[in-house]
């Protein structure tokens, strides 16, 4: 039996308010390809960041045993020196540098004060050959496609003398052909003795390439399946990923009457802002009724946020087409202001980056989207503003010593409440909540769910985008499933299940592939 390349024992990693990894054990055999699968937020990336030293020794508990030796990495350089190289989902290449320059960035050939460009390009050419690229090493990165860029990343990893290569969603931005080439390359490297770990949500790829599959769920290791020993069919893997009980983590909604259609979107198309020929949203139609909670499920990158933001005053994308009707009347929303005035609110998934002003107090954040409500002729009435902030603090039970506290000092859950308060004060009819419970603890989640119930009880409509299937199932009256920019399924409450939603996504994945073939 092959010896173990890597053993991670009892790894626990805690973020403020969230236990991301809880006693995770993970063993990789030498010369194998090991897949790590799990839902969004299961802890895959966190585990790999612990391994690579991005989260340094001391910030987690547990042991990393690599090639029989206990390792304590304090940064990425340490792990790279041992031959552990991670290739991130988002490519880390500098577009206006050549392939060769990128390949040896931070790892330059030659003397410290004089880079040896001949050696650089000679070695780059050698590694390019290994990964099967014909390009000159002097070609600029921006001039080659994403698939080739991914190959350059792999060549770069090899140039660092990688003995354990970690690939985080390597095929997420590749087309079918490039993906296949990449997977075959991994199999080729395996023959030469390279060990790799692949993180992927594309189950068919995983079963094609992996020798072992470890399933993570909610920060726990669920099981490790071995090819040839266990059943590694897609169904089996999915069951492992989602197999979780729906308990009463969701407050019951008191008979809210579902009324007229409040928002109707038809034939919505959106193109990528940077790559104008890439279609991000493909002919999406949906509607939301008064008093209804509609869930939008899908994997990361399915286009849910892009859909929401493009509707919300064209805050995302180019070349947008389609119609939006609010209460049956067609509206043209060209700016967030128009969207707000039409009764829409978009509560972002990125509360720190694009939701709140962390350096400003709660009161300022609460009134930002509706400053008219507390001002007269452009002059703010500070008393009214404080009273509004105080009213929402009480309503949403935000825990803070004062509404003059800076938002940056609050916990994630309380920040989320301030963000909700801001949009509730704008008094919309339709709220789009994007990942409303991301990164907050269970107690705060429950409170957010109660707020959602209150909102629909008041006759508002809620669109809830969430990557957590139990949450979507527990809260929604109706669910749309999105994949690759298209609506691939619609379920009524009661007829949906985690397995159904997952297989809905996966079957459209493979259907798309068959079409291409």
């Amino acid at each position: 039996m092959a010896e173990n390349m890597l053993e991670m024992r009892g790894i626990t990693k805690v973020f403020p308010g969230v236990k991301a990894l809880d006693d995770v054990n993970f063993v990789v055999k030498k010369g194998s390809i090991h897949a790590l699968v799990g839902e969004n937020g299961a802890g895959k990336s966190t585990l790999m960041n612990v391994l690579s030293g991005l989260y340094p020794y001391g910030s987690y508990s547990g042991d990393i045993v690599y090639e029989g030796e206990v390792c304590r990495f304090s940064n990425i350089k340490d792990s790279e020196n041992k031959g552990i190289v991670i290739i991130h989902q988002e490519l880390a290449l500098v577009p206006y540098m050549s392939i060769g320059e990128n390949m040896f960035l931070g790892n330059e050939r030659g003397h410290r004060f004089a880079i040896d460009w001949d050696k650089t390009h000679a070695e780059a050419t050698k590694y390019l050959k290994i990964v099967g690229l014909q390009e000159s090493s002097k070609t600029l990165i921006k001039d080659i496609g994403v698939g080739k860029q991914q190959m350059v990343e792999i060549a770069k990893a090899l140039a660092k003398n990688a003995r354990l290569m970690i690939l985080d969603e390597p095929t997420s931005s590749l087309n079918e052909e490039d993906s296949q080439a990449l997977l075959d390359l991994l199999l080729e490297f395996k023959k030469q003795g390279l060990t790799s770990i692949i993180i992927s949500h594309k189950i068919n790829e995983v079963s094609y390439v992996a020798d072992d599959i470890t399933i993570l769920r909610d920060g726990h290791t669920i099981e490790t399946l071995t090819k040839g020993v266990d059943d590694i069919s897609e169904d089996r893997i999915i069951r492992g990923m989602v197999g979780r009980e729906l308990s009463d983590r969701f407050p019951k909604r008191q008979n809210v009457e579902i009324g007229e259609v409040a928002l109707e979107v038809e034939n919505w198309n959106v193109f990528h802002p940077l790559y104008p020929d890439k279609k991000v949203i493909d002919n999406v139609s949906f509607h939301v009724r008064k008093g209804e909670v509609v869930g939008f499920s899908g994997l990361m990158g399915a286009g849910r946020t892009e859909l929401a933001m493009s509707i919300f005053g064209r805050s995302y994308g180019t070349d947008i087409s389609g119609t939006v009707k609010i209460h049956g009347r067609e509206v043209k929303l060209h700016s967030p202001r128009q969207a707000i005035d039409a009764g829409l609110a978009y509560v972002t998934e990125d509360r720190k980056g694009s939701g709140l002003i962390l350096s400003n107090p709660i009161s300022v954040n609460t009134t930002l989207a509706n400053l008219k409500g507390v001002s007269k002729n452009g002059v703010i009435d500070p008393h009214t503003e404080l009273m509004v902030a105080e009213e929402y603090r009480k309503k949403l039970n935000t825990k803070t010593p004062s509404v003059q506290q800076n938002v940056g000092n609050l916990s994630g859950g309380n920040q989320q409440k301030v963000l909700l308060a801001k949009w509730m004060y704008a008094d919309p009819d339709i709220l789009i909540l994007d990942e409303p419970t991301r990164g907050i603890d269970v107690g705060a989640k429950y409170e957010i769910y109660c707020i959602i119930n209150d909102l629909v009880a008041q006759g508002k409509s809620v669109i809830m985008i969430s990557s957590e299937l139990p949450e979507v199932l527990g809260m929604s009256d109706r669910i749309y499933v999105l994949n690759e920019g298209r609506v691939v399924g619609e379920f009524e409450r009661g007829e949906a299940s985690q397995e159904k939603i997952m297989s809905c996504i996966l079957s459209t994945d493979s259907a798309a592939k068959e079409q291409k073939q």
Partner: protein
Amino acid sequence: MTTKNKVLDFIQKYTMIIALVLVTVFFAWRTNGKILDARNITNIISQNAYVFVLATGMLLCILTGGNIDLSVGSVVCFVGTVGAVLMRRDLNMWLAVLIMLVVGVLIGAWQAFWIAYVKVPPFITTLAGMMVFRGLSNVVLQGKTVSVTNEKFVQIFGGGANCYVPDFLHGEGINLLCLVVGIVACALYLFFTFRNQISRRRAGLETESLAKALLKSVVIVAVVIFFTYKLAQYKGLPMALIWVVLVVLIYTYITSKTTVGRYLYAIGGNETATKLSGIDTRKIYFFAYTNMGLLAGLAGILTIARLTSAQPTYGQNYEMDAIGSCFIGGASAYGGVGTVPGVIIGALLMGVINIGMSIMGVDANYQKVVKGLVLLAAVIFDVVSKKKNS
């Protein structure tokens, strides 16, 4: 909060005021109290009037995200040039003033358009403006000096020997008007402070403790009375002080009480969040830079009135004085943080250091070294204290 924390908190909140007091005490000691002479106090105000005005405008730009305006020195020069040439041709003084302000606004709007709507980086746009308007001033003046002979203009906007508010109360041996203004200002301050306290208390909002508010008021009243008394002993209220106080009051109001002011802070704090809250951020950038043009126009007026001429070299490095004052006065280099009173304290600190060292006879080159180090120290303090907080 423990006592130690309270002290630290106090120091952090009032760092620059404490620094100003310490620096003033230091110079009072080294110059045998000369720096607190009425004449020197008047000088600090008149000499630095342009800094106060420009720094206030610069703060608005910096609030939007640490963006600066490099062109203000050249704009001051150009506006001054236009004014001097017009008055030379016996144009009515008030018309000339209006034209100068309009020219300032137009220049501001020109730069603001590129910055706000075309997204040319402010640094580049205003660097270009710095060269363009310096060059244009030279072209108009043909490299020569044009003197300003309109006495009324000089008296109203200048900082020279006769540029004081006349004492129409006719005090004997002391400028009575100046004293009265000081007392009225204190009374108004107390009235508004306590009215605000009472209405907040009625509304059930938290207020600072009565003792704290009283102490603060006593200190402010004492300082105002002391300085107006000093000024009254000399020639009274310098005209430049009137303009500076007007600018400070108006812009303190705009930044703290109006929606436009709120949006300036919001953009600097988080531009994406501001956009998604339905605010047209381009308009706010446009406002900040157009307004900078207006205030550069006013600074141009003050400058030629004080120096009673226009020269192609006027206004050089004014932008640096303004930017320096902002950062010393607690504006964040990343935007979103800073107040008009803070910036004024920063400008005062620089002014006191300047004049103090001049009285002590320190070489002008060393003065620059000291000012540079003070600026660096202030920004280091800002960056480090932010790191600790996060």
